[in-house]
């Protein structure tokens, strides 16, 4: 390949890249960071091989969604309505709305927590952050919003640095990645399931597909979009790995167990220096802000798709009133819930997990049926190998979700 061709290929990729990376990194979010820090502090590196498994699952389904978006030019919710009718779509939308609202609340709680690491009052900052993002999304063009999201994604590099600051044993990391370890004890299994569960949520499938459609990526650019999706999945798992490494070689080594990310960040200070703690806070802030916007947008995209209303980040408020209305509504409700004193987020997060757990397998099956339908996908439909792996993966995910649900109930 000539030098010139290579550089034009890269430029093409650079113009397409976005939806995949944003979705995958937003998928980490506050809950992902919490899970990873807790897992690292408690179990060390023994679970990192699970990241490889979840990366394969995530990559498989994200690629499928992105491909469906590129080929059909329609969002997932729209395709489900056209293929399976109103009832299943309506059900899916109600569950998605509730689950995403719960997730958004959790992400805003993440914003509040990250600010409290720096000792900043949440009653001032959470509304300000929400308002700023709202203004950006409602007023900004698609390109501007995407650029802003990509910039926020950059904050995730901080975890990479905090991993280095913890002076890890890289050889150990490499072996743990390929050597599966399973301990047959309840906390270990529960955390393992949670680790996989947090990286794959229904809204991610809806969002990546709608965002690809919104960006108007044409079938000709499918391979670049695939590259985008895979880079996103790779980066998201590197972030997760970095967090686990960081907490393993500091907290786990010192034998400090933590329950949430705030404790983790504060406990890092004496062990790895205040830089590490600050980096942790910045990363958490970025991840939460990103998810707190992407998740409500995913709901807006999907509901509008399902009922056929105009949608799109680049549209004006008057063109896509319901789209921005749904987005604003979720933002408002989430901010209010987070700022209310004495609201237990544990219940909300558990309920969200349950709803996501119910919805995810159903959505995955719908996706598989649509992606293998020649009338819809033409020659870009799933092949047998993809389908086999995907069916196995969705069965596995169904099983994991049932386990997570049962464990969650027992934990209550």
């Amino acid at each position: 390949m000539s030098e010139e061709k290579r550089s034009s290929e890269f430029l093409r990729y650079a113009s397409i890249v976005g939806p995949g990376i944003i979705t995958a990194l937003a998928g980490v979010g506050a809950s992902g960071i919490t899970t990873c820090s807790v897992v690292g502090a408690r179990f060390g590196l023994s679970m990192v091989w699970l990241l490889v498994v979840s990366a394969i699952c995530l990559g498989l389904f994200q690629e499928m969604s992105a491909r469906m978006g590129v080929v059909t030019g329609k969002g997932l919710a729209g395709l489900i309505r056209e293929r399976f009718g109103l009832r299943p779509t309506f059900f899916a939308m109600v569950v998605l709305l509730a689950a995403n609202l719960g997730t958004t609340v959790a992400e805003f709680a993440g914003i509040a927590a990250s600010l409290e690491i720096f000792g900043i009052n949440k009653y001032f900052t959470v509304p300000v952050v929400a308002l700023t993002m709202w203004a950006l999304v409602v007023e900004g063009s698609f390109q501007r919003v995407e650029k802003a999201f990509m910039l926020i994604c950059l904050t995730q590099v901080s975890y990479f640095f905090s991993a280095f600051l913890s002076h890890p044993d890289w050889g150990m990391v490499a072996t743990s990645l390929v050597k599966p370890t399973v301990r047959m004890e309840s906390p270990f299994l529960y955390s393992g399931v949670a680790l996989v569960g947090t990286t794959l949520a229904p809204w991610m499938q809806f969002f990546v597909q709608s965002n690809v459609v919104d960006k108007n990526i044409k079938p000709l650019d499918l391979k670049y979009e695939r590259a985008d999706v895979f880079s996103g999945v790779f980066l998201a798992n590197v972030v997760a790995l970095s967090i686990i490494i960081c907490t393993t070689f500091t907290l786990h080594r010192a034998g400090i167990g933590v329950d949430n990310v705030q404790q983790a960040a504060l406990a890092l200070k004496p062990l790895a220096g205040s830089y590490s703690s600050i980096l942790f806070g910045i990363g958490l802030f970025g991840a939460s802000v990103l998810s707190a916007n992407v998740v409500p947008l995913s709901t807006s995209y999907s509901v509008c798709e399902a009922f056929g209303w105009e949608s799109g980040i680049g549209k004006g408020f008057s063109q896509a009133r319901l789209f921005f209305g749904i987005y604003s509504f979720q933002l408002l409700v989430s901010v209010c819930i987070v700022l209310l004193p004495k609201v237990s987020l544990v219940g909300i997060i558990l309920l969200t997990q349950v709803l996501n757990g119910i919805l995810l397998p159903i959505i995955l099956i719908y996706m598989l049926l649509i992606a293998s339908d020649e009338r819809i996908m033409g020659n870009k439909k799933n092949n047998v190998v993809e389908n086999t792996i995907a069916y196995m993966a969705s069965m596995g995910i169904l099983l994991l979700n049932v386990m997570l649900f049962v464990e969650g109930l027992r934990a209550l």
Partner: protein
Amino acid sequence: MLYLSTMLGSSVIDAEGKRIGRLADLVVREEKGFPRVQEILIEARRGFKRWYFSASWLDIWEVDRKRLVLASGASKARMERNGIFLARDLLDRQIVDLDGYKVVRVSDVRLMEVGRDLRVMGVDVGFPAILRRLGFSRLAQSFQNIAPGFLGEKMIPWDFISLISPTESDIQLRIEHRRLHQLHPSDIADILEQLDEEKRAKMFALLEDPKAAEVLSEMVPQVRSALAENLTDARLSKFLEMLPSDEAADILGSLPREKAKSLIGLVKAEKASRITELLSYDPQSAGGLMTTEYVAIPKSMTAQQAIEYIREHVSSAETIYYVYVVDPEGHLSGVLSLRDLLRSSPEKAVQDIMIRDVIVANIFDDQEDVASKLSRYNLIALPVVDDDYVLKGIVTFDDAIDVINQEASEDVGELSGVFIEGGKIKSMFLNPTRAAVLVVSMAGGLIATAILGGLGNNFAALGSLFVLIPALLRSSHDVSFWPLAKRIHEMGEDEYLGGRKTPKESMEVVYVFLASIIVSLGAFLGSYLWFDSLLLSIAGAIGVFCGVLASGILAIILSILLARMKPRVILRAGTSVINLSALCVSILCFVFVTRFLVQLLG
């Protein structure tokens, strides 16, 4: 009316009473008008195996709620045939408008039995259709009753949609989508006028009642009479009851004499007599244009009683803005606006507050004269009297506006104020002018703060008098807006005010002077009570006086300079320039005068 969603899945039974399968789809072919269902597609199932049969619609013997009975057997279906499969190609599909914007998805398809045929009337896109398909038909009905506009049934007639191509899954609208759900009666009338007679009648049958009446009154007379002849007397007479009597008379006037006579017998006596009277005038005259639904009161009423009277008749009158005062014989003796009534003391008699020389139209005046009179005097309604000066009716602005040509109507729009552009009132909140004022006030405040900061040393000399600064800024701000407000007033509204004079520039200086004195007196009193020091208070008061006066005079000068510019420039730039400079000048004056005085007085 039948719905595709309720029909799908019903059992199909052959001539021997044997169940063939369930109804899977209906097939239509593109044709002019509302297409007929040609064939039905039947799905038979055993275990996981499926077969498809088809049958011609003409072979269907009976359509039941949950059952279709065939007169003959069904044949094996050939799936590759062309045609539109309603469930497959329409249901749940995206509708896009002319520009490709997404509008809504198809929730149901409406069908209607016309003779032996089943025809597709249009696609359902409303909220009740969604509920119906989710299985809550009752709930759908109640939503229809609660909020018919927002959550009610919405249908897009077949004529307005086009299938882009069999392979493309989206459906395109033929008209702009915003117009669709809120088609104004006159728009619907326009569309109906372009259809042929058969289709027009069918489309009209789909309209809900109050809207149908309005649509009918908006049609051109020839089309209206043709359409009305085919309507039942009961429905027509209901329309006549619903419409104001002038519009009812218009409809009756375009009907054949016999039909009109029989109809008028069905209408309530009171309304009927009004309509007959209106019918007797030439449609091109004031009498033909006027309505008899006005508010008239006797001279002896008090303002309080008059307001009560208006309240009682608010629903039956076409306009309540003017109240006409008549003597016992019905002679028009004066007019009152609602504003006059509300402003006067309640026990005052109306004859003491009414305007006696009323602008009127004679009942035989040409309609164009009436319209130009309304426009010339900027009235909302014009009373119509006969040769004996007996009040017969009023011509309201909206009736007259049809008569005035486009140009005149635009003039009226311009006259009625600066917030009207292209005949539409611009949203008040988003008006750039308002936003500009807000921004400017903010900027003015900030600059004032900057000046205060810059005057740090002088400040100390003021002693405690700085507490007067907020009051000073507030007053100068208000005073500086006066001259500008006057310009704006003059621009659009001097005719509207009926020649009421706005003050001359010299008078404005006097006003500003007086205002400054009042404000400074207030400042003196306030600071005297506060500091208990006569000298200090005098210094403060003089400072405030100078500040307010300076800003007011500056504003007058600037507004004279600006007056030659375009209205828009005055509104957008003028406010900022005047406000900013006035605030600066006012604070500088205040600080320097007060400092000088304080030092002088020791």
